[in-house]
């Protein structure tokens, strides 16, 4: 019964894809609906032992979406178990036990943490990243098959430097009425983020890396960033490298997003570009992402806008769990469980493309629980 539906679905989608776009669909679109075992993965003995993953539900819609992930992991019998820790945005600093747990487990899954605006508390998200030295933030923005958007053929990965730049948090009032904020760029951090970006491109068969900057105005700061990127680019002759000014970049993103592949940016521009790219490709509710460091990784909803949601969403329980589900698939691959990751991604993409269970931000009316049930039902 399921297989007949699947072939009918494929035929329908094949027709709609062929008629709507004159360019070939994004890579992996056709494959993701037709589940084949795409991995021939030979594990080491003992790899199947359950791994501990720190889970931080967070604020707002966080507990809702992390609950969704837990349910799906249970249904798949994935070899992960979660150690829950409560962290809320109004705490002054991240509890030491949470940091210890992440350092032990090396991997963490997290919902959004609310940062009070203009208040005295520094953002806990930023604190976590600095403590654990998670210097690369990654957001994968791509068109989901079956989800209509204004822009087609979007497949962008935004890699953003996560520790310094404008978010150094070094501000002071010079005299009353005049405030200064320091933007710090170091060669060390710029080099390692450029290395990560090129390595990511190399390992994932990406063809082009674009550096986003504003070096025509901030000549020394962004100039240093660009220098580091250029140096690393020479070491990867097979990958094309180019540079684009950030305001032009945003303009191109809304008019011709297909020209971008991997983008590497300093901290603030990365925030803007990632949210813009997520917006054009389907919204921040569906884009996966994570933060990676040399020793640890934290997976969360990719783009930061709306990861806490608002009160209405929480009350009505209509938050979109897709972003966190896809991020947890990334986490499963990171933990070297590729088959579970494939199954999860296929199920989620199938639910989205069928279109019956979609939350409000995708144009539907379903609650979080309905989407989760649909994903569990479609799991192979």
């Amino acid at each position, binding site marked *: 019964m399921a297989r007949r539906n699947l072939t009918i679905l494929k035929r329908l989608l094949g027709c709609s894809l062929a008629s709507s776009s004159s360019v070939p669909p994004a890579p992996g679109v056709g494959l993701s609906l037709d589940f084949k075992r795409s991995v021939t993965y030979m594990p080491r003995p003992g790899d199947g032992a359950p791994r501990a993953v720190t889970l931080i539900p967070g604020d707002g819609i966080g507990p809702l979406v992390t609950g969704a992930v837990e349910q799906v992991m249970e249904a798949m019998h994935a070899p992960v178990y979660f150690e829950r820790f409560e962290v809320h945005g109004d705490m002054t600093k991240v509890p030491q036990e949470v940091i210890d747990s992440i350092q032990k487990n090396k991997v963490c899954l997290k919902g959004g943490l609310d940062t009070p*605006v*203009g208040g005295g508390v520094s953002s806990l998200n930023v604190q976590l990243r600095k403590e654990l030295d998670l210097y690369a933030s990654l957001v994968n923005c791509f068109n989901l098959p079956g989800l209509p958007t204004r822009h087609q053929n979007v497949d962008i990965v935004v890699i953003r430097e996560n520790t310094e730049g404008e978010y150094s948090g070094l501000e002071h009032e010079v005299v009353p009425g005049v405030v200064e904020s320091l933007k710090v760029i170091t*060669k060390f951090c710029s080099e390692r983020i450029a290395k990560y970006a090129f390595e990511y491109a190399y390992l994932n068969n990406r063809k082009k890396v674009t550096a986003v900057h504003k070096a025509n105005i901030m000549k020394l*700061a962004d100039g240093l960033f660009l220098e580091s990127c250029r140096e690393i680019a020479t070491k990867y002759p097979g990958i094309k490298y180019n540079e684009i000014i*950030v305001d032009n970049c945003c303009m191109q993103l809304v008019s011709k997003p297909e020209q971008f592949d991997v983008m590497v940016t300093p901290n603030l521009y990365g925030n803007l570009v990632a949210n813009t790219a997520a917006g054009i490709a389907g919204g921040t509710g569906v884009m996966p992402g994570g933060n990676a460091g040399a020793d640890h990784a934290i997976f969360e909803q990719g783009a930061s806008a709306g990861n806490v949601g608002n009160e209405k969403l929480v009350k009505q329980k209509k938050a979109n769990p897709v972003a966190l589900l896809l991020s947890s698939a990334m986490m499963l691959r990171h933990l070297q469980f590729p088959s579970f990751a494939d199954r999860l991604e296929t199920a989620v993409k199938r639910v989205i493309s069928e279109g019956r269970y979609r939350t409000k931000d995708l144009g539907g009316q379903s609650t979080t629980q309905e989407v989760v049930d649909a994903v569990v039902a479609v799991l192979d």
Partner: protein
Amino acid sequence: MASQILRRVLRGRQAQQISTALIENPSSPRLLSSPFRAPSSAAYSTQPIRATLFPGDGIGPEIAESVKKVFAAAEIPIEWEEHFVGDKVDPRTESFLTWESLESVRQNKVGLKGPMATPIGKGHRSLNLTLRKELGLYANVRPCYSLPGYKTRYDDVNLVTIRENTEGEYSGLEHQVVRGVVESLKIITRQASLRVAEYAFHYAKANGRKRVSAIHKANIMRKTDGLFLKCCREVAEKYPEITYEEVIIDNCCMMLVKNPALFDVLVMPNLYGDIISDLCAGLVGGLGLTPSCNIGEGGIALAEAVHGSAPDIAGKNLANPTALLLSSVMMLRHLGLNDKAEQIHDSIIKTIAEGKYRTVDLGGTSSTTDFTKAVCDNL
């Protein structure tokens, strides 16, 4: 000699009267009647208003010609005072713009500027920076609205971005601390933030706009953007009829690309303003169609076309004069000549909507002169 001095003094006083009106109204559906309309059309029918014109480089002279032709056809009482960028650095201004050019803008209070390319090299300031610093241009106003007839992915854009233009991240204060570590200063002052917030609310009120949104990142940059927000809140209290809201910049970017109809007037510090105004220009069709106006101390308004000088199509009669024409409409509205501004604006919209005369960048095959002639005919 005495009569010349007398004439110049009289003209100066008239120019001051116009600039204190400070009414700008670039969006046609929200036209307000200017209190200066009746006297302006009567008093200035014989007395032309002097305005400075910087044709600029590349395609600049061609599109400036376009503007002059359209203005002549519409019988606008403007007398252009053209100034060109020199080829020697003027020591008084440390740039290629001469002191006389700047003085002329200061005196006339209005100007129109085409695209200028700063020559590469040291020893002089960039041309835009010179204009900004010398004339004290503190706010950059860019109305972005979907042009009916030119279809983009977004059809319902109707917003105005107002960007603080003097400080913020673009203060240019950078230094190398030790090898491999660079610091750049972002400066926010109460004075500049209050000034731009005042202008934003004044603009919103004068143009019938209902909502002003301040864009910030004060959850991370607590003191700097926090100060900016405080100033905006203070000014908002003085205008209770206008809704005021604050939006974090990453939320703003996402909402702009998903649903730009949510926004009305946006006021922002320098860097965010740069990025967001270019993003909005991209939503409506690119820099070739976007008007812009810089407001300076003492009521100076310098309208400009924000696109580049396009040296590859210079002199070939292919350039699109729409941006400069729409900016000149903004200039006219600032001067209070609203009926003439409306006339030219409607004519441009009609020409583009008809689709018969479109320049190459919009997908057509017309030349600059053909397009200009079509606009003149549609007046």
